[in-house]
């Protein structure tokens, strides 16, 4: 590819204590290209982008922007140069309006007074470019996560950056919104903006990116044009090994109904949903963001109290007095959507997280038996192959995939009848994903029922016995994964009502 080099990275190293996050990265980004950076969790992608953005100072190496050395500048100076980074975490101010949030870094002022009128015109222009319409006076806290993602995107585009870095922008947004995001990226390219795109969803990279760089163990190991990079080769290179089993669902003899949901209703989020799950069955709930998947799963687990309808476990209603405590007692396990705040205790160790719900297995007369605790945690850790294999590691410093393995792992000590998994592979790299799928397959083989709420269609087709497609809190269609196609499901998810009968 021809053109100027916009960003040149030379021999960048960054250490966190004894951990080498970046181990000598060399990379060139050319003008006007969409450049994907892929790699497992912990390969150093996000660290590199934070170092590029000035949040971290590299221990060694240099960054050049249009041949100018920008190493060691502050985030603000780097933004001024024209490099904008959209982080994985949405850094928004809930209580402020959309307008204020988009202009957070650069509120226009007249003399010393803030001039929102001028700002409004600027914001309208950017939103038009993105192709989204907001009531600018609404608070950002009242928006859905995918809408918030576009607020953050608009903020990054407000100063017309030369280089835009998107760090997993679509791990929290639905399919429709992803399409919209891609449209924006293509439009930016047409306007001469370079985009660096980090994502775990390999398929999508092939849709929108010109070039792919593969990261492993803090190094950039290869960069090629997308068309010269076969998908299986890419995956092998990312993992450093060949990926054998991807979807391990074996045919399992299904038993009686373990879960039956009857005409469930909750505000305008769930509008009369009925389905059942048998022992040994994996049932997927598929839908866009806001289709009601999370609400259904939370109702079954007793976090959310539905307005009407019934939930039966082994033909016994769970109401009234349903609660997570009761759910655990009757054998329901939940892996929640938001693992950082609901799935784990971030500042505790892997050991504590693994044993917290299994206290009765490791305690005697209300006293925790430390030896047993260590033994139990170590066994689980080995079984799940969590890396690093250290049960005293603080869980939030693990990579996303390993965190998720620990969160699932805590439910494997006692046998549970029903596993509820909400977006279990969001933000998880392909290697860990495969291991998680293996675990789910094993659970079903062991006779448990599994409800898999997901927006990853491939995952649903590959893993489940039955796919239930939701649209705005209603079931629009139930399809058999053996005979359906990705496009069929997609059409139901997006334009659902047109196809529904």
């Amino acid at each position, binding site marked *: 590819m021809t053109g100027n080099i916009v960003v040149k990275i030379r021999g960048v190293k960054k250490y966190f204590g004894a951990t080498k996050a970046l181990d000598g990265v060399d990379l060139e980004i050319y003008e006007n290209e969409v450049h994907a950076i892929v790699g497992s969790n912990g390969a150093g992608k996000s660290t590199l982008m934070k170092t590029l953005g000035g949040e971290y100072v590299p221990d060694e190496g240099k960054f050049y922007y249009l041949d100018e050395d920008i190493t060691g500048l502050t985030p603000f100076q780097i933004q001024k140069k024209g490099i904008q980074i959209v982080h994985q975490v949405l850094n928004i101010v809930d209580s402020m309006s959309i307008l204020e949030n988009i202009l957070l*870094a650069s509120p226009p002022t007249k003399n010393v007074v803030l001039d929102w009128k001028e700002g409004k015109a600027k914001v309208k222009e950017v939103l038009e470019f993105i192709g989204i319409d907001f009531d600018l006076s609404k608070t950002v806290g009242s928006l859905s996560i995918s809408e918030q993602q576009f607020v953050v995107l608009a903020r990054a585009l407000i100063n017309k950056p030369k280089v835009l870095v998107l760090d997993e922008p679509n791990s929290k947004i639905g399919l429709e919104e992803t399409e919209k995001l891609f449209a924006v990226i293509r439009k930016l390219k047409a306007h001469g903006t370079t985009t660096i795109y980090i994502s775990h969803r390999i398929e999508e990279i092939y849709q929108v990116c010109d070039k792919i760089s593969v990261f492993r163990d803090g190094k950039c190991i290869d960069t090629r044009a997308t068309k010269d990079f076969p998908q299986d080769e890419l995956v092998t290179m990312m993992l450093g090994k060949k990926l054998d089993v991807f979807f391990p669902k074996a045919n399992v003899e299904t038993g009686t109904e373990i879960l039956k949901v009857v005409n469930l209703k909750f505000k305008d989020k769930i509008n009369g949903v009925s389905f059942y799950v048998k022992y040994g069955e994996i049932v997927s709930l598929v839908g866009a963001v806001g289709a009601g998947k999370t609400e259904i799963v939370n109702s079954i687990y007793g976090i959310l109290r539905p307005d009407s309808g019934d939930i039966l476990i082994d033909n016994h209603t769970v109401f009234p007095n349903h609660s997570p405590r009761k759910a655990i007692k009757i054998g329901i396990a939940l892996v929640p959507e938001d693992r950082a705040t609901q799935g784990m205790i971030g500042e505790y160790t892997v050991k504590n997280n693994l044993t917290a719900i299994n206290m009765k297995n490791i305690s005697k007369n209300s006293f925790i038996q430390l030896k047993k605790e260590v033994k139990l945690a170590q066994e689980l850790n080995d079984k799940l192959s969590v890396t690093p294999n250290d049960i005293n590691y603080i869980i939030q410093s693990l990579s996303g995939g390993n965190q998720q393995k620990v969160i699932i792992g805590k439910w494997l000590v006692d046998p549970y009848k029903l596993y509820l998994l909400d977006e279990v592979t969001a933000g998880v790299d392909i290697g860990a994903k495969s291991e998680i799928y293996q675990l789910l397959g094993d659970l079903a083989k062991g006779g448990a029922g599994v409800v898999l709420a997901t927006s990853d269609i491939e995952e649903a087709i590959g893993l489940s016995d039955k796919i239930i497609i939701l649209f705005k809190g209603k079931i629009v269609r139930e399809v058999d994964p053996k005979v359906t196609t990705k496009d069929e499901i997609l059409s139901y998810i997006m334009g659902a009502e047109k196809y529904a009968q």
Partner: protein
Amino acid sequence: MRNKINKYLLCYTMPFGLLVLVFLLQIIFYDVPLFSALNIKNMLLQSVSIAMTALGLSYIMMSGEGDLSFAGMFSLLTVVFAIVTNAWSNFFIAIIAITIIAVGVNLMISLLVTRLKFSSFIVSIAVMFMANGIEKAFHQQTTLINSEVIKSFSTIEFGLPLVVWLMAFVYLISYFIINKTRFGFNLRIVGENKYAAIEAGINSNKIKVFAYIIAGLLLALAASVESTRVGAIYEQGKYYMLPVFAACFFGSSMFVPGRVNVVGTLVGALFLGIIDNFMKMINVESYIVPIVQGTVLIVSVALASVQNRSKIVQIKL
């Protein structure tokens, strides 16, 4: 439309309710002249020190920190004020002296909080007790009484007492700073989400230091006003801790629901002034006053957290 109505309900129910409450009090206790010109003047005079101190605390709270030191510092500043004026009988030297002390101490606190990452809560408690101790040391020799010259300042009036105009002025300026300037905008961002502030290239530490300095200035001003109002000085700050807190929290239940804000703090301070004044007029026992003020604090914290929760629900569902 429904959203708009909800928003207005959330923002304006409280101040409206307060107004109704005050009128109800007047109707029930019809023989107490709550709304006489003289009483309104007195009530405003009594509210000035609370309102100014609470405004300073509001700046600190908006930057995401907390502060308790004002209670002890207020006592210390009034004592220093009395000593300086008694020694030199000069009003302005006294003001300058206590401004330097107040700003200096707050600067020190802010540096401990921003540079060394100490908890502002703990640091300010420590400072509060230290200031209390130093104040007591001054009382060892004599009883401190403000001179009549100083007290004459409180009688200067332009329609309303000078100090009331002063209060109106600092609130007006503060409203402008918080809502219309870049500094105020950045201050609110820092208080709401420090990561968003980092991403927006805002120097959080600098903003916080400024917030503390402004609070120090306002505290010195409040202490000067207090000195013109009272004769004998003894542990003045003790009576301010609760109402100042209550004013801030009470304020956070109106106008910008769940958030400390300038107008809210003013209304909160005035409301506490009215209640205080009312209790004096119906001659309740003095021990009732802190009980009522404590109740107001609890109720306002409850209101603010309910409003916060309703917002969280909106996000999650």
